[in-house]
C-alpha cells in the first residue's frame, strides 16, 4: 500500500517536473482536486479562459480519485509535493489543513467580498476571522426521473411522501422499469442520496441541524429516526441484488433507461446529459403533507484555496481572485450544470435540469448536510457511521431505531453538548 502511494507520488513528481521543464519561462500553477470527472471541462474551457486573460500563468489541473483525495492530499502536503492550489472539501478536512499551516489565510483576498457568510461558512475558522478557501459551488439533492417512463406509465411527479410511494408501487407493478436506481455496496449513496436527501424535510433543515449541534435535539428524536424509517421502505423498490450494486451501476441503470427514478445530487446532471437519450426531469424530496414547507440540502461542497508553501503566491492569488469573479461563476455553472455558484451575483443557467434544481432555492428552505459541520470531528466519525447505518437500514440488517441509537451513543461518547 505504501509502496503504491510512493510510486504514485514519484510518478506525479516526474510528470510535474517534465511539465515544468517544458515551460520554464511561464509560471505553472498546479491544482489538486478530486473532481477527475471534470478534467476535460477544466482543460478545454476554464483553464484556457483564465490563461487568455492572464498571460504568463499556466494552470495544470491534476485530479486524483475522489475516495483517495483526502489521503493523497495529506501525504502530498506532508511531503511538500502538493500543488499550488488546493481544492477544498467542506468543513473539518480543510480546517485541519489550515490549522496545520498547509492552507493560507485568504482574509486579505479581494474577491472574498463577493460571497455571503453562509457561502463562506464551510471554509472559515470557527471564530469567523480567516476564510481559507474561495467557495466555488454547492450541490442540491433531489430525485431525477425518466420523463419518458413517467409519461408511458401515466405517472405524475409526486409531491408528498404518500404520492412518492404510490408512484414507486405503480412502477413496480408495471414491471418495465426498476422503480429506483440505488445500491448499498458503496454505502455513501445510501447516506448522501438517501438520508441527507430526504432528511431535511423531517428535521426542518437548519433548525434541526443547529439544534443537533447545540445538543437540544438528539439523533434518537423522531425527526432524525423518521428518515431512516422511510429509507427502510425503499428496499422493496430497488433493483434485484441492490446489495452488491455500486454507484456506477446505479448511474448506468438509470442512464440506460432501465430505472425510472434516481435519488440524486445535482452533480450528476452533466454526466447524465451526455449519457441518457431520454428526457429527464427532477423533483425535490417529497414532503409529508401537501402544503408543508419543503427543505432541500443545498450543500456547500467545493472551494479552492492556496497552498501556504506555494512558490508562486502572487500568481495563485490572481487565480483565486479570478475564481471569485462573476466571469468564473458563469463559466463554471454552465460548464458543469449541477454545480451551483455561491457568489452573490446572479448567474444565468442554460441547462433545463439545472434550472429545475436551482428553482427550489426559491420555494424551499436550504440547509447543508447534517453531519458535516462540527459533528464529524470525533471518533467514531458520525459521517462514516451514517453511511454504514443508512446502508444497514436499507438492507434491513438493522432497524431504524437501533441504527439511530448506535449513532447517538457514538456521538455522545465524544461530543460535549450531547452529553447531558
Amino acid at each position: 500500500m505504501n509502496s503504491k502511494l510512493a510510486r504514485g507520488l514519484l510518478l506525479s513528481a516526474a510528470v510535474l517536473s517534465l511539465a515544468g521543464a517544458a515551460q520554464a519561462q511561464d509560471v505553472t500553477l498546479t491544482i489538486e482536486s478530486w473532481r477527475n470527472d471534470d478534467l476535460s471541462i477544466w482543460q478545454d474551457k476554464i483553464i484556457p479562459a483564465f490563461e487568455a486573460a492572464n498571460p504568463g500563468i499556466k494552470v495544470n489541473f491534476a485530479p486524483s480519485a475522489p475516495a483517495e483525495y483526502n489521503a493523497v492530499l495529506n501525504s502530498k502536503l506532508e511531503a511538500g509535493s502538493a500543488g499550488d492550489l488546493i481544492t477544498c472539501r467542506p468543513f473539518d478536512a480543510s480546517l485541519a489543513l489550515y490549522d496545520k499551516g498547509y492552507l493560507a489565510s485568504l482574509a486579505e483576498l479581494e474577491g472574498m467580498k463577493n460571497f455571503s457568510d453562509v457561502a463562506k461558512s464551510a471554509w472559515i475558522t470557527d471564530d469567523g476571522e480567516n476564510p481559507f478557501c474561495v467557495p466555488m459551488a454547492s450541490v442540491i439533492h433531489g430525485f431525477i426521473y425518466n420523463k419518458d417512463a413517467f409519461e408511458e406509465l401515466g405517472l405524475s411527479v409526486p409531491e408528498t411522501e404518500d404520492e412518492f410511494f404510490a408512484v414507486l408501487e405503480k412502477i413496480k407493478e408495471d414491471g418495465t422499469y426498476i422503480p429506483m436506481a440505488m445500491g448499498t455496496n458503496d454505502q455513501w449513496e445510501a447516506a448522501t442520496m438517501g438520508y441527507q436527501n430526504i432528511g431535511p424535510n423531517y428535521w426542518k433543515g437548519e433548525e434541526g441541524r443547529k439544534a443537533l449541534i447545540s445538543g437540544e435535539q438528539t439523533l434518537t428524536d423522531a425527526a432524525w429516526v423518521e428518515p431512516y424509517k422511510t429509507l427502510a421502505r425503499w428496499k422493496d423498490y430497488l433493483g434485484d441484488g441492490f446489495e452488491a450494486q455500486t454507484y456506477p451501476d446505479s448511474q448506468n441503470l438509470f442512464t440506460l433507461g432501465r430505472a425510472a427514478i434516481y435519488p440524486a445530487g445535482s452533480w450528476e446532471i452533466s454526466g447524465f446529459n451526455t449519457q441518457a437519450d431520454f428526457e429527464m426531469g427532477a423533483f425535490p424530496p417529497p414532503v409529508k403533507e401537501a402544503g408543508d414547507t419543503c427543505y432541500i440540502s443545498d450543500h456547500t461542497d467545493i472551494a479552492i484555496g492556496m497552498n501556504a508553501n506555494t512558490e508562486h503566491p502572487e500568481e495563485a492569488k490572481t487565480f483565486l481572485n479570478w475564481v471569485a469573479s462573476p466571469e468564473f461563476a458563469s463559466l463554471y455553472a454552465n460548464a458543469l450544470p449541477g454545480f451551483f455558484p455561491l457568489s452573490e451575483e446572479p448567474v444565468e443557467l442554460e441547462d433545463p435540469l439545472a434550472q429545475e434544481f436551482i428553482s427550489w432555492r426559491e420555494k424551499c428552505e436550504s440547509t447543508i448536510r447534517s453531519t458535516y459541520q462540527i459533528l464529524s470531528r470525533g471518533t467514531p466519525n458520525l459521517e462514516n457511521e451514517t453511511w454504514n447505518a443508512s446502508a444497514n437500514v436499507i438492507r434491513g440488517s438493522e432497524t431504524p431505531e437501533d441504527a439511530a441509537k448506535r449513532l447517538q451513543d457514538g456521538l455522545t461518547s465524544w461530543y460535549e453538548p450531547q452529553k447531558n
Partner: protein
Amino acid sequence: MTVSSPRMPVRWHIGVFLAPAVLVYTAIMVLPLFGTLQLSFFRVVDGRDVFVGLDNFRTLLGDPRWSASFWNALGNNFWFFLIHMAVQNPIGILLAALLSNPRLRMRAFYRTAIFVPTILSFVIVGFGWKLILSPIWGVAPSILDAVGLKSLFAPWLGKEEYALTTLGLISVWQFVGIPMMLIYAALLSIPDEILEAAECDGITGMSQFWKIKLPLILPSIGIISILTFVGNFNAFDLIYAAQGALAGPNYATDILGTFLYRTFFGFQLQIGDPNMGSAIASIMFLIILMGVCIYLFGIQTRLRRYQF
C-alpha cells in the same frame, strides 16, 4: 621462542557482499518499521507530539468502540486465513500432484494458465470479479440461469454473511498458483530411485503419494503455510479494490489492513490518525511475528528432513 599463530585472514568480502542488501533492507524496511513503532507511542496533543507510552494500545484494546472494530477485523482476518489454508493450499497440492504425473499431456499449458492470475494486479482481479458477480451486468447470474440454478445466485459481495468468504475464494483463485509451483518443484526434486524403490516394495498410486511423496514435501508445505499466514495478515489490496476502504457491507470484510488504512490515512470526513494507525500496524507486526515464531520454533525444528 615465538610461535606465529596462524592468523585467520580478515574475510572482508563477506561484509562487502552483504552490504548492499543490508543497507537497502535497512533503509526501506527496518527503519520504517521502527518509525512505526515509535509513532505508536506518541499522540498529538494541542498540535505537539506527546509521548503517551502504551496509551494508544490501551485505547485500541480497551475502548469499546475501537476494540469492537479491532476484534472484528482480527476475526475476519483469521477467517480469511482459514479459507486460504483450507482451500488454497490443498488445491495447490492437488494440482501439483496432478501436474507432476508424467502421463499428463499439455502440462506446461496448465501450469501457465493456473499461474497467470498470480501476476495480475489486484485491481484487475477485484474489478473483474466484481463485474463477473454483479447482479446487474455479471455473467455469473446468466451462467447459473443457463444451467437452471438461478435460484442459487445471490449478490454475494453485498451480503454480510457471504462477502468475506467470496473475497477469500477470489483471492484463492488468484494465488493458488504459488503453492502449486512450490509443491510442484518439491515433487520434481524427489529422486526417481526412491520412487522406484517404493514401487519395488509394492507402494504405488495413491499410497505412494501419501506414504512417500507427502512426507518428503512437508517442509515445503510448512513454508507455504507461513507465506500464506504472512500474506493474509498483510492483505489489503483486494478488499480495498473490491469493497473500498469502509470494507462493507457493515464492516463484514474489514480486515486489519483496511482497518489500518482507514485509521492511518483517514477516510472521507474522518481525518487520519497516524498514531492510532501505527498502533494497529504494530499489533499486526506482533501477530505476524508470533505466528512466524510459533512456526519456526514449534514446527520447523520438529519437521524430519531427508537427505538424498
